[in-house]
């Protein structure tokens, strides 16, 4: 007698999984709409999805939404790019120079675990309520995870591979560019991912605290006039920004580290 094996083909499993994800998203949005339409009808306490989208459309037509999105994105991008460049450079410096490590390490460890976003009032006092203060906040909160991961990445390069580089007579520069850098790359990307999360928090907190424009400003002013739909819209906009940037980083990772994809496929 033969026994039928009950094994699902991977393609079938993947299709089922995709369907569940889709149903979950649609279900969640539906729940939001139903709650706002029939259960919590007070417009101050809640706003259904359709109302939020309506508000979003109105702001798009008037062009206001682009102004706020533009300001928030600018704060994020300037602060994050600066933090990435300076963070990666300092992390690499710390990993390759004993002296730099000894001098910087206590401060990096301290600031990495400090809730630096609490410095927001200070930055507002120093740089004013415009873009500059938000860039400073974003930079400050994002740089430490980026720096630390770049440092760890260089340090975790396989000593066997470093010996191969020596056996093939690599110069110091070649050791760095052909071994240390590619070995550190996955760690750098993890650092950037953590940095993105923190940078977004920095934008939100900075703008909520005091601002003249930006998605956070939109949220604050809407909250003060009891306009819950616009508050929800603002939060939704921040989420969309976050998801978009994370997806972008994934693309960059695939392009820069194709060997990691091949590992995942083999597993």
């Amino acid at each position, binding site marked *: 007698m033969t026994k039928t094996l009950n094994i699902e083909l991977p393609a079938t499993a993947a299709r089922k999984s995709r369907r569940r994800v889709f149903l979950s998203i649609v279900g969640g949005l539906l729940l939001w709409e139903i709650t706002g339409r029939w259960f919590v009808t007070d417009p101050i306490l809640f706003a259904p999805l359709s109302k939020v989208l309506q508000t979003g459309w109105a702001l798009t037509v008037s062009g206001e939404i682009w102004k706020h999105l533009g300001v928030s994105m600018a704060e994020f991008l300037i602060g994050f790019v600066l933090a990435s460049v300076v963070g990666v450079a300092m992390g690499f410096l710390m990993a390759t120079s004993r002296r730099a490590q000894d001098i910087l390490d206590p401060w990096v460890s301290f600031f990495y675990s400090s809730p630096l976003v609490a410095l927001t009032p200070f930055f507002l006092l120093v740089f004013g309520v415009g873009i500059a203060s938000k860039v400073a906040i974003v930079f400050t909160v994002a740089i430490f995870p980026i720096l630390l991961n770049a440092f760890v990445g260089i340090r975790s390069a396989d000593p066997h591979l470093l010996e191969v580089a020596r056996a*093939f*007579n690599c110069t110091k520069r070649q050791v760095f560019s*052909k071994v240390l850098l590619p070995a550190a790359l996955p760690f750098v990307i993890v650092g950037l991912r953590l940095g993105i999360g923190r940078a977004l928090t920095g934008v939100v907190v900075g703008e909520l605290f005091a601002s003249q424009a930006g998605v956070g400003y939109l949220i604050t002013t809407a909250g003060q006039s009891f306009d819950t739909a616009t508050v929800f819209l603002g939060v939704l906009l921040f989420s969309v920004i976050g998801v978009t940037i994370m997806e972008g980083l994934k693309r960059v990772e695939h392009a820069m580290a194709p*060997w990691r994809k091949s*590992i995942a496929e083999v597993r």
Partner: protein
Amino acid sequence: MAAKLEVRNLSKYFLSREGEPRKVLDSVSLDIADNEFVCIVGASGCGKTTFIRCIGGLIPAEEGQVRIAGRAVSAPGSDRGFVFQHDSLFPWRTVRDNIVFGLEVRGESAASTRPLADALIKLVGLSGFADHYPSELSGGMRQRVNLARALAIDPDVLLMDEPFAALDAQTREIMQRELLKIWTERRKTVLFITHQIDEAVYLADRVLVFSSRPGRLAADIRIPFARPRNLSIKRTPEFLAIVDDVWKLIEQEVVSAMQLAD
């Protein structure tokens, strides 16, 4: 004829944890002729890797001299090609890019190294895998790439440190046969380290036996078998007799090394 690789009275010390110098290699001397295939066998921990790293110039020796084709060497150089014991391929490089690593370091362009890379890929039997990453290869295939990478710089001497130690028994035998085939096509002076006596006797023109603590040359045995050698010679009485002789020379040390490890 002058020796291709000459080692004179090489001694090496490591500092113990207490900071005392401990002699790991004791005045080792050897000569390897051009195109000769020499294997070193010895118990685990007797200093084989240390010895070959000294020859490769990866670590300095406190006493003694190494000469390649008459020139004294003390640092790594392209006159020696290293095949490592560990899985030492760059995971972010494809098979082809791993193979041309040494040439790229010298400043040769990808276009100029391509024909050589393709020839080496064919030589080590990896046709069709040029664009694969190491994570997509089996252990045996990875060591083929490791070998091709060392051959690419066309060294005077090939230094191999237990390259097949991590492979399963069948793959190891196939790799031994393949290595001899490749060596017949690309004649090279080879210093091959192993802790497996039958591997040494099968591959080598001469087997050098290392004794432990400190590492010293205990015997130099000429292997009489004609080439090309078939794997089936491993089952002949003559072969087994030589294996037995070598085993008697290091048995005591293998046993004490095992006891130390316990």
